[in-house]
């Protein structure tokens, strides 16, 4: 499962409250998506392009476990998200809603905002296209890759009825 796109880079410990601020939680997804991470980079929700890649530091997506944060991030059209580490509920939600996520130690020093990045979720490999530098991390668990390929958890549960019944 491969992606290539322009990178938007964010820092450490970013809570879901900054992906979707409290004042937008009752708004429809299209509205939430227009304000994702706006406090940290006002350009991001305005100029993000389909297939772009979000790169973040440690414990990305901490705080509230509601899947709207991952859904709103996915609704911006990004291809995948790569972080030093994720908050676990956020990581889980990424795969359940069909947003590929990869943990790579050192990713924040591999790229700058705007760099082109190549990401392989299945092998856990990331390449900065401009510099040619590559980093490897733990690839996603095969169960999670299967979930992504199915289109998320609910689609997986429908396809493989024996799993949960």
């Amino acid at each position, binding site marked *: 499962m491969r992606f290539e796109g322009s990178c938007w880079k964010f820092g450490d410990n970013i809570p879901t409250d900054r992906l979707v601020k409290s004042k937008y939680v009752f708004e429809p997804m299209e509205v939430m998506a227009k304000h994702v991470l706006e*406090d940290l980079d006002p350009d991001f929700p305005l100029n993000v392009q389909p297939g772009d890649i979000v790169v973040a530091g440690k414990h990305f997506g901490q705080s509230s*476990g509601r*899947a709207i944060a991952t859904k709103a991030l996915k609704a911006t059209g990004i291809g995948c998200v790569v972080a030093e580490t994720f908050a676990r509920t956020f990581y889980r939600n990424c795969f359940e809603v069909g947003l590929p996520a990869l943990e790579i130690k050192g990713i924040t020093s591999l790229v700058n905002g705007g760099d082109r990045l190549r990401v392989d979720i299945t092998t856990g490999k990331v390449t900065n296209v401009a510099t040619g530098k590559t980093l490897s991390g733990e690839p996603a668990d095969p169960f999670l890759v299967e979930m992504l390929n199915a289109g998320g958890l609910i689609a997986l549960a429908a396809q493989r009825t024996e799993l949960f019944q």
Partner: protein
Amino acid sequence: MNLAEKILAKASGRRSVEPGEIVIAHVDRLLMHDLSGYLTADVYERKVGRPIPDPERAVMVFDHHFSPPTEKQAEVLKSNREWARKYGITLLDCGNGNLHHAAVRNGFVKPGMIVVGSDSHTPVHGALGALAMALGNDSHAGTVLPYGKAWFKVPETVRIELHGTPRPGTTARDIALWLVGEIGEGELNYAAVEFAGPYIKESPFWDRWLFPLLCVDLGAKCSYVEPDEVTEAFVRTLPGGLSGESPRGDGAGRDAGRVLRYDVGEVVPLVACPPTVGNTKPVPEVAGRPVQWAELGGHGGGRIEDIRAAAEVLAGRKVHPRTRFNIVPSSRQVFAEAAREGLVLALHEAGATWFPPSTGSNQAINMGAMASGEAMISTHSRNFPGRNGSSEAEMYLASATTVAASAVAGEIACHGTKGSPE
């Protein structure tokens, strides 16, 4: 096996499980609140839409609202209510208290259960020896409601042993906040955190509660205290009492992947400063910061212990004129206890304002929005900018004693250092 592994093995019908394995396990309880129920309902109605075979597994508590302030929010509560009624899901409507406190006080959580919920502080139920984890709406709608199951990666266990005796003035909340600062946010990512050691064993139930609560900020998947006589005595006071045997760990952490030992005697009263919970500082370092708001409430606050501590600080004193002191009982039961003990009138006359049992100012859904430049000191569990109105407002987290002392001083203050005598 560690307790988390024992519970996951039993619930997935296996003799044993290993950290890192993915298992599909039975879920005993799903906890939703008014901000997650309707989102789960939306996914369920659009993508699943099957009958719910065991609706009593699910409990919804309206805790971010005690009375909807806008038409839009009234509609959200109405849709939550109608969805719960449609399937026979248990609903505790506005005024019942914080989701987790109401769930415990009404007997919905017992030792050994697997408890899931969208609220990120769901792991707090590990205080009763339940294995409690936060999942997303798609797990709840897609597998928990229709099949009573969910997928779990078996976590590695990290044991935190707390030794020693707290200094006078240091509370359990100071110790829990200190651990987040000391260990670091996200540093125990994906782990099951076992709280143990003499300090935990000797702590009463509602002080133990604060440790699994704060483990969320360490990044833990779940956290627990192995059930013992304190747990069982507490559970016997709940509706339904103690049914069956509560699961036992080995008591020694023999299978823990890591053991971290701390002396609680080192800890002084702390304030977690914005922007994150791990940004803890001794109270004197932030003393003097004016606070427009002080609040007892939230997932960890609004306990009867917090209200008693505030009443002690406010005895013979008044809330400072520039500060509003909100008191939000964590459950109806706590409000009744406060009323019986005379604390409602005492705190009211000292200038505090009582709010209905709820989650209080958490996320400023029903109360607690701040203007830019304002600050609140509270017993809440989160201090991220933008959660309470303006991104330029500040939330400080501290013990009930420090919150009450700050309400008296009109600024962040240590108990016993500053006050406005009557």
